[in-house]
């Protein structure tokens, strides 16, 4: 069995098949943000507590990444095998828009308002074989009752 770890335990919590994103909630003005910051960007309060974010949302805007990003990107594609991926701001039920990879078969197939759900996804494999997992969203599929 391969070992895995999250890219950052401070923002990802739960098991890989029941992932939660950890953001912040300002106790003074109720602003929800991601990741949790020491101060609230709306009211300046320092009273920002942890909050697990909603797992579903809709695509607010999106784009494709059509070229291999420079470091600090640590994905393991090369310029030879790189294939475009998709990125979006996903508006969660909490009222925050989170920037995230979106897993789709065709990079230009997303549309605004599309429903998506949180998943974990492979990001890279470390030298000792540990699988590093990132957060991502994917279009929701209607589950038959």
């Amino acid at each position, binding site marked *: 069995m391969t070992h895995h770890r999250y890219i950052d335990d401070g923002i990802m919590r739960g098991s890989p098949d029941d992932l939660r994103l950890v953001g912040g909630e300002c106790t003074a003005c109720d602003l929800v943000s991601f990741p949790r910051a020491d101060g609230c960007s709306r009211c300046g309060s320092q009273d920002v507590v942890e909050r697990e974010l909603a797992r579903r949302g809709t695509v607010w*805007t999106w784009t494709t990444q*059509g070229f291999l990003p420079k470091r600090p*990107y640590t994905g393991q594609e090369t310029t030879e095998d790189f294939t475009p991926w998709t990125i979006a701001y996903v508006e969660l039920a909490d009222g925050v828009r*989170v920037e995230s990879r979106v897993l789709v078969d065709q990079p230009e197939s997303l549309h605004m308002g599309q429903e998506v759900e949180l998943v974990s996804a492979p990001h890279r494999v470390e030298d000792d074989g540990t699988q590093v997992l990132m957060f991502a969203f994917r279009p929701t599929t209607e589950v038959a009752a």
Partner: protein
Amino acid sequence: MSVAIIGVGLHPFGRFEGVSALEMGAIASRRALADAGLRWDQVQLGVGGSLGVSLPDSHGDTMADSLVGPLGLTGVPFINVANGCATAGTAISVAASAIEAGQADVVLAVGFDKHPRGHFNADPAVHGLQPWYGELGMFVTTQFFAMKINRYMHDHGISHDTLAKVAAKAFRNGTRNPNAWRRKPMSEDEILSARMLNYPLTQYMFCSPGEGAGAVVLCRAEKVRELTDRTPIHLKGNTLRTRRFGTFEVFSPSLAPTWTDAPTVDASRACYEQAGIGPSDVDVAQIQDSESGAEIIHMAENGFCEHGEQEDLIQQGATDIGGSLPLNTDGGLLANGEPIAASGMRQVHEVVVQLRGEAGERQVPNEPRVGYTQVYGAPGVAAVSILTR
């Protein structure tokens, strides 16, 4: 304001192997002084920017005050400015404030940079971001521009063809500018069918990081006559703003579910008020076109039209030289590239040249009297200037 611009100088923009950022800055400074008919030892304050200092792998890793070496060690006070994409606008602001405050009568403001090829890069920690954001490939400025214009097109009915028209106009203007980097015209079809870097923006809809320098000599308005024969161009307004809560900015792991007016809107309104001039008075403008979409959004943010009106205006050629609102007449960032600290100086240079009537084959007709400049960018800063003949 009682500040006049009496000299402007550029080092051409592009790629110049073997020429350092500092040398380009010195060349632009000497040209601005020669343009004003002044000597370096008449300058009472220097203000300069070079953003390469804060960007890894940027060869412009020189503090701007190193310029006092090649220009001559006169003992002049010199202030280094680094303020993201508004670095040049900030340098001019500091220079003008010093004149207004009575600290100096003659000030040189200069900006120069020499960035490596490929998209801008930096350490996420410099922007207060956690390492995972960069590791996951989201610390890429071009994604931000693409997501912003994609949503804007959806909300305001802007077409892909209009994105291409903005770039084609920039390259067309670049062919008329000997200092520009891109001087070959390109058809809208070529632009639309080029490699998709970040949907909906293709390769030729983005400006490239580059190299270059620009300098401006500012002077107390009452002193112009005793110092130079040059026709003064008056700096009527100069404003700088950072982002308010709820704006859509680069390097944001999350956004609030609102779209607050951008810092450009705040800087622009304040500048019109300071100058006592309205958007309809502007005869020629240089605005931040980091990519085609930025020029479109900034037309509305600077008050030149309502959101959505850009589609018809651009399709009808209003932003061409000879149109009702000539924009980025020197080719803008799209044709000149973006050496960050030099970019805003290039805008002021172009407006001054246009208002003097010295822009040659790219001259805006009918003797323009009011010019406008705007820079905007990371991490959510904007600077605006209004100049008059």
